[in-house]
């Protein structure tokens, strides 16, 4: 069995054990359900509405930059491993790659992504803000 198959077994066994850890207390613990036991927690007063609502768009932009970056950086791992014999050409290529990558940050920076604007809604309507 090679290392990756073993690792997969670790994941499966971990899942089983985690399941046991969650199920075990069901057998031990008391079960008393009152009128408000299953309410969603919110400062102790009655819950107002659902949490599934519109959310600040800024998070979405960060997710976009992340996806672009993370994929590119993963490409760099094989590059880093094979860097030693690649000569000066390797340096030029890695530099070009990183410079282009940095442009993405510069662009987002100029666009004002990293400056968080206050999303406070007008007094009359209380919108969801982050």
């Amino acid at each position, binding site marked *: *069995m090679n290392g990756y198959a073993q690792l997969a077994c670790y994941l499966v066994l971990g899942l089983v054990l*985690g399941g046991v850890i969650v199920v075990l*207390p069901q057998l031990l613990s008391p079960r008393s359900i009152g009128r408000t036991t299953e309410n*969603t927690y919110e400062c102790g007063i009655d819950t107002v509405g659902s949490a599934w609502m519109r959310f600040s768009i800024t998070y979405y932009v960060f997710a976009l930059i992340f996806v672009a970056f993370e994929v590119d950086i993963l490409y760099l791992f094989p590059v880093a491993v094979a860097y030693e014999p690649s000569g*000066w050409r390797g340096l030029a290529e890695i530099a070009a790659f990183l410079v282009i990558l940095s442009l993405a940050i510069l662009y987002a*920076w100029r666009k004002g992504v990293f400056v968080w604007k206050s999303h406070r809604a007008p007094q009359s309507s209380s919108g969801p803000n982050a």
Partner: protein
Amino acid sequence: MSPPETLVDKLDSPWLGVVLGVAAVLGMLTVNVLFLVWLERKVSAWIQRRMGPTEVGPFGLFQTLADMLKLLSKQLITPRHVDKPLYHLAPLVVFVPVVAAASLFPFSAGLVLQDLDIGLVLVFAFGGLAFVGIFMAGWGSNNKYALLGAMRSVAQNISYEIPLILASLSVVLMSGTMNLAKITALQSERGYWFIVLQPVAAVIYFIAALAETNRAPFDIPEAESELVAGFHTEYSGMRFALFFFAEYSNVFIVSMVATVLFLGGWSGPLLPGPVWFFLKVYALVGLTMWVRWTFPRLRFDQLMSFCWVVLTPLAILNLLITAFVARLV
């Protein structure tokens, strides 16, 4: 991938190896978490001039064990309006990768459960899986605090992932391998730790690792004064314990990565390998605790812009310089 012989290869049956391996990893992590929680309470007490836990066992050492037993006997409450599949799966999705990731580390020469050539990438990949779990918990709970906490947590984690990986990349570039055991062996051979050549990367890694593990001063996702408990607000009993277990194990895992990458892993004079390894890891964990109890929390926009405007460009620059210097020598 045959050299060096791992522990599991020495056993006759691979299945037995897997079961023993999981038991060993879980045992180690559990003891660690119990100890780390106790240590955290003691460290915070020392810093705030209190006593911390003293009653259960010598120096209150068994306090967390007692806490765990209490959690075991607590009722698991599932709120009425949750998204059931997401809500129930989330603790497991956070917990399982921790077990797999912890099995990848070399505790001494030859003392490694899984000696894989892409060990470093795998550790980061398992770390990434946990973010999915965190978001599942936040969204599935249908609780406003949990959702806010999860949103912040994921935004922060994915952002700090970039400088974290870039900092580790400079070490990979220097050593030419992603195998954790080989990176350690290389430092042992050359007789110096990579922190000597990569001090900037080491500092970037440490800061990003603090943010990755949601610890102060980057603990906005569960800022208790504003968000109750963040993404695990609606979890009780052992489900909460699973999140807690994963959180402290992650602190331990990022410290292990830092030890392997920058502090020479198990290499060191006189003392045996595992002793050196754990000494270094605990020194780093101690440092994280010290930081947690002395620095105030950052504001969320400061946190995000610090990552993208300061840390990431610095990490890219560091990588470029590393590549350049590697050509010269």
